[in-house]
């Protein structure tokens, strides 16, 4: 059981009339890669800024290593931040940017040099010491920003959508590197993003947020496979959502057919949302299928086809490697463990 490093207790934060974080509670373990995931404006950056010390909560407590740190200045916290737009100092070169924090701590010159050099190596920028910031590409600036933060050996690194400005290929590369770095350094990463793929790839834990509230906390697998609400299901990956009725434990009805499932604990005949991932559908001959539809459109996506099927007047998305002609009749099947049942969200 790993140790709790940071805990946010009943945090509320308002900007004017707008409540950005509403009675917020969660904790972060030591050496964890945790991602705050949510649409823009959901309060995830504010949450990060509270931990970093750039905002103070209106109520509640931020606890770091057992101590309340609400009123500590950013420079008094063992936490460093990697800013969204890097915020590198344009008047300093790569070396001086990275050495900035160490020089403030008045460390001996030789130690600064040794730490900067090894950090540059870690972020794969060895030999870039004397380069000016303006001559670096976006990806290189990103690495300098990370280096500048981790060279201080913080216990926690906060990352605010650090990959947002990079192109897709570079972004995917950096995802692996960040994860690798986190494991190598053995420190806690708190990562903020609105990109669900980033969150799934890197995180140990994902916190899904919307409108200042936490909707679900869990491992990427948990959240992807067992989304607790329609919002989460929709936000993490594509989803097909059906209206259904829970007949009894392990039995759900939708499309006026009954399906076996693995969920229980609902009231009898409770109206529910049924979520099925596009990749969880299999084609079977229509004669044997409980769900029958007509192929409406087909798009080649590289690894798979994205096929839209119309079932009972509604359009659903299926990801499959099998080809089906547009207009053809198809039968669909879903394994019981791939049928996810969730309580209806109150409007």
């Amino acid at each position, binding site marked *: 059981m790993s140790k709790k490093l940071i805990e946010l207790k009943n945090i509320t934060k308002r900007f004017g009339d707008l409540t950005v974080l509403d009675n917020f509670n969660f904790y972060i373990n030591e050496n964890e890669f945790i991602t705050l995931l949510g649409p823009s404006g959901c309060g995830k950056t504010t949450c990060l800024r509270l931990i*970093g*010390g*750039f905002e103070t909560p209106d109520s509640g407590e931020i606890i770091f290593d057992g101590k309340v740190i609400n009123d500590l*200045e*950013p*420079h008094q916290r063992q*936490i*460093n*931040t990697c*800013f*969204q*737009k890097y*915020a*590198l*100092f*344009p*008047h300093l070169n790569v070396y001086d940017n990275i050495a*900035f*924090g160490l020089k*403030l*701590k008045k460390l001996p010159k030789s130690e600064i040099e040794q730490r900067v050099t090894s950090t540059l190596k870690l972020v794969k920028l060895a030999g870039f010491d004397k380069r000016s910031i303006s001559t670096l590409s976006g990806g290189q600036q990103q690495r300098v920003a990370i280096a*500048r*933060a981790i060279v*201080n050996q913080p216990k926690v690194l906060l990352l605010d959508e650090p990959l947002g400005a990079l192109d897709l290929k570079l972004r995917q590369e950096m995802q692996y590197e960040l994860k690798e770095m986190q494991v190598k350094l053995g420190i806690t990463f708190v990562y903020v993003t609105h990109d669900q793929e980033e969150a799934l790839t890197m995180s140990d834990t994902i916190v899904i947020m919307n409108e200042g509230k936490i909707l679900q906390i869990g491992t990427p697998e948990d959240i992807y496979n067992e989304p607790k609400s329609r919002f989460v299901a929709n936000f993490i990956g594509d989803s097909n959502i059906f209206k259904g009725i829970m007949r009894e434990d392990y039995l759900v009805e939708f499309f006026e057919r009954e399906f076996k499932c693995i969920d229980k604990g609902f009231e009898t005949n409770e109206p529910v949302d049924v979520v099925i991932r596009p990749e969880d559908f299999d084609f079977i001959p229509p004669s044997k299928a409980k769900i029958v539809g007509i192929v409406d459109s087909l798009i080649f996506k590289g690894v798979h086809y994205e096929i839209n099927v119309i079932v009972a007047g509604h359009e659903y998305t299926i990801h499959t490697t099998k080809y089906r002609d547009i207009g053809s009749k198809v039968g669909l099947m879903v394994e019981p463990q791939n049928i996810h049942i969730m309580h209806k969200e109150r409007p």
Partner: protein
Amino acid sequence: MNRLRVFSVPYWIWTILLIALPTVFLVVLAFSDYSLYNPGNFTITLKNFQIFSQPYVFTALKNSLVLSLITSFICFIIGYPVAYYLSTFGDKTRKIMLSLLIVPLWANMLLRIFAWEKIFTPNTIFYDIFQFNIDLLGTKSAVVIGMVGMYLPFMIFPIFSVLEKMDKNLIEAAKDLGATDFKVFLKVVFPLSVGGVVSGVIMTMLPSMTSFVLPARIGLGRINLIGNIIESKFMKEVMGSAGLSINVGSLVSLLIMLVSVAAFVMITKVDKEGETLI
């Protein structure tokens, strides 16, 4: 684009008539004994340079340099905090505060000089209101105070415009890396605003170095700057005095012109996008 070229004609006429031609005149006069009001001889000569051996010219040059440096320095000491303070305001307040700074510039410069003159003269309206005198007329301090009052905004604007555009994340980043507020200023904010400071120094030094009405009025003619020398050289000839004083005046003017051009080259060096020049 070619069709639009015709609209630049007025600019060219302006430049040629009011800048290029006079400069040519200045060069011709400075390096010859040609008399503008008494045409006759024309010999190219360097004898006008003798002016620089005159003690009163040397004093004026020294005054210009020293007083403008002091003015500029005081403007910096007062102006930087003002600019910094202004840059911390929200958009709306900032606009109001900025216009408050600009409004005095709309009053005629001579009027403002005369106002300072009154302030420094004993027993004027200033005494009637405040019941004390600032008897400084004719001193260097009065000239410097007058020039600071006159040119302070030109220090504030460029510094302000640099600070305003500065990425506020840089300040947070510096704090995050362990800097106290003072260190943030020393290590990040100030180094990044040096361009504005250089512009501000040049924009306050140049006009104070070359001003002549202000030292004449507030300095009571006792404190001569290089501008006063140029003025007197030109005025003498107009009033019918003999000699080549216009030629000498032209030479000194050329010198000032070179200094100004050099200063602007310097501004463009520290500030490539011209962001400090509003």
